[in-house]
């Protein structure tokens, strides 16, 4: 559906953010990108969406991409339904406004994320979680088959993180979407991702099935902090969680950094 081929990029020629990066997204599959701050996660997403041209390599997308930015800014005073309607823009000519069908589609997508009740409320007066869902609905309204999300859960509280992530996982299955998201939480990747890409320091990376890539060694190497992977049993469900060993035991993380 979409293939990233030997991608490489830098902002300063002496420092590659990533290089020789290749992976593919398949329908109904969730891929998570993890990496420390400044590792180039957002840059890679921009390259995938085509808003940034790579120094090396290529992105071959065979289908429509829907992009969900972080809902940090709230300076748009449009109604929620109109924000979703903006997702229809790629199908509208320069002098066209959305018609009846576009509006119906937007209502459908807002309903799909469970926000029909706030359709006529202003986007900038919604909560952070609701704004994130509106932006998700906006991407869905563009009838995309690839969904790219920039830290969809980072600004949300625990309950909303669960709602948004479960919704993303469900959409991937029911709509057969290829999903690519970045996150700072290895737990989220363990929870919903099929494949995981770890962006390490020095332009290195690891890519593979989420379960086998998200090991204690790899995560410790990536973040420069020792971590433990623990399993929590809740009823007949087993939940994997990653626990960083900083702060609590007062060990100095700096001594472990960079292996």
């Amino acid at each position, binding site marked *: 559906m979409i293939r990233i081929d030997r991608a490489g990029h830098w902002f300063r020629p002496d420092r590659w953010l990533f290089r020789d990066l290749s992976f593919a997204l398949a329908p109904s599959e969730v891929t998570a990108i993890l990496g420390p701050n400044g590792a180039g996660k957002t840059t890679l997403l921009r390259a995938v969406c085509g808003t940034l041209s790579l120094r090396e390599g290529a992105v071959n997308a065979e289908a429509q991409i829907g992009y969900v930015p972080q809902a940090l800014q709230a300076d748009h005073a449009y109604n929620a339904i109109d924000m979703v309607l903006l997702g229809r*823009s790629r199908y509208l000519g320069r002098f066209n*406004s959305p018609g009846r069908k576009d509006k119906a589609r937007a209502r459908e997508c807002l309903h799909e994320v469970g926000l029909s009740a706030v359709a006529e409320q*202003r986007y900038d007066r919604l909560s952070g979680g609701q704004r994130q869902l509106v932006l998700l609905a906006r991407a869905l309204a563009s009838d995309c088959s690839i969904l790219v999300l920039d830290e969809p859960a980072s600004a949300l509280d625990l309950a909303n993180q669960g709602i948004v992530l479960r919704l993303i996982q469900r959409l991937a299955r029911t709509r057969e979407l290829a999903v690519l998201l970045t996150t700072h939480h290895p737990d989220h990747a363990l929870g919903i991702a099929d494949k995981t890409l770890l962006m390490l320091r020095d332009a290195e990376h690891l890519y593979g099935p989420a379960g086998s890539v998200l090991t204690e060694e790899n995560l410790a190497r990536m973040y420069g902090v020792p971590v433990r992977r623990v399993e929590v049993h809740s009823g007949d469900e087993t939940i994997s969680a990653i626990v960083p060993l900083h702060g609590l035991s007062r060990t100095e993380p700096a001594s472990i950094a960079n292996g």
Partner: protein
Amino acid sequence: MTQDLVQRQTTFEATPINPGAWLPIALYAGLSLALIAALLWSMASGRYQVPFTHVIGILAAHVMDVTPTWTPTERIVVEVVRLPRVLTAAIAGAGLSLCGAVLQGLFRNPLVGPQTIGVSSGAALGGVAAILFFGFGIFVQFGAFVGAAAALLAVLAIHRSDSHSPILTLVLAGVVVSAFCSALVGLLTYIADPETKLPDIVFWLLGSFAAATWWKLLLLSVCTAIAGVVLIGMRWRINVLSLGDEDARTLGVHPARDRLILLTATCLAISAQVGVSGTIGWVGLVIPNLARIIVGADHRRLLPISTLMGAVFLVVADTLARDLTAAEIPVGIVTAIVGTPVFAYLLRRNATSKTP
């Protein structure tokens, strides 16, 4: 259970009875009536009072048989002196407010207007240069357009060099370019021949509809109509562009070309207004903000409402400028007296809303 109830209650309260259906229609109808009333009032009032019924009769006589109850002088005052003037004021106000709303959307900044962004000053400079070197006529129009476009390019060039506080830099870049243009206008008026050119320039710069003629009205109407069709036609695109370039691109819209079209149309309308009646400030800044408070930020509604409100406002302002004192005061002074306090209020409102 209680929490669920509280939640439902707030949702219910925050969702008013959908005003979407009737509000715009009532607004359009109300504003259209207000515009007609303002036009008639403007034609009736002045140093030479013409009764309201006579004004209507004089205008109606063009389309149907009306027994004249008015004097020939009244007819000349209404048809030759006042009609082109009030129509010019209405179209100029409409164009300025429309352009202001578009610029505010494009630059994601409610403090932007034809004047704050330097376009009006650039047009004034171009117009003065045209009067000085070529004399009055179509050259003024052309000079104003070139000046407006050059000023806008300069503002964008300064703006692009600093992306840290885009809202502030844009306004400051406008101030800088305006100051530069004003200095050049000062230089040109200084070297202009005080016997022949200077009175023309000074009178034009003051900003007035007193010299309105059918020919100027035609020129203004054509330019404003072309710009208006483009700008209102692209109202949804302005919604997309107002999200910022990155978002617009991911939504499948290429911002650069759309913005060029919109800015060119804006320059056309503003320079046409400046060419016909000199710089008139504050209309294009204040009216779109008032319109936004009434109908919200969606440009599908904001642009037409702002256009209508601007037309009403400038007709009223021009009538006041004509009638308040024995000698006519320039309309730019009236719009500034009304506009500056409103602008100060908006500035404060904007500052407080940005820091919750």
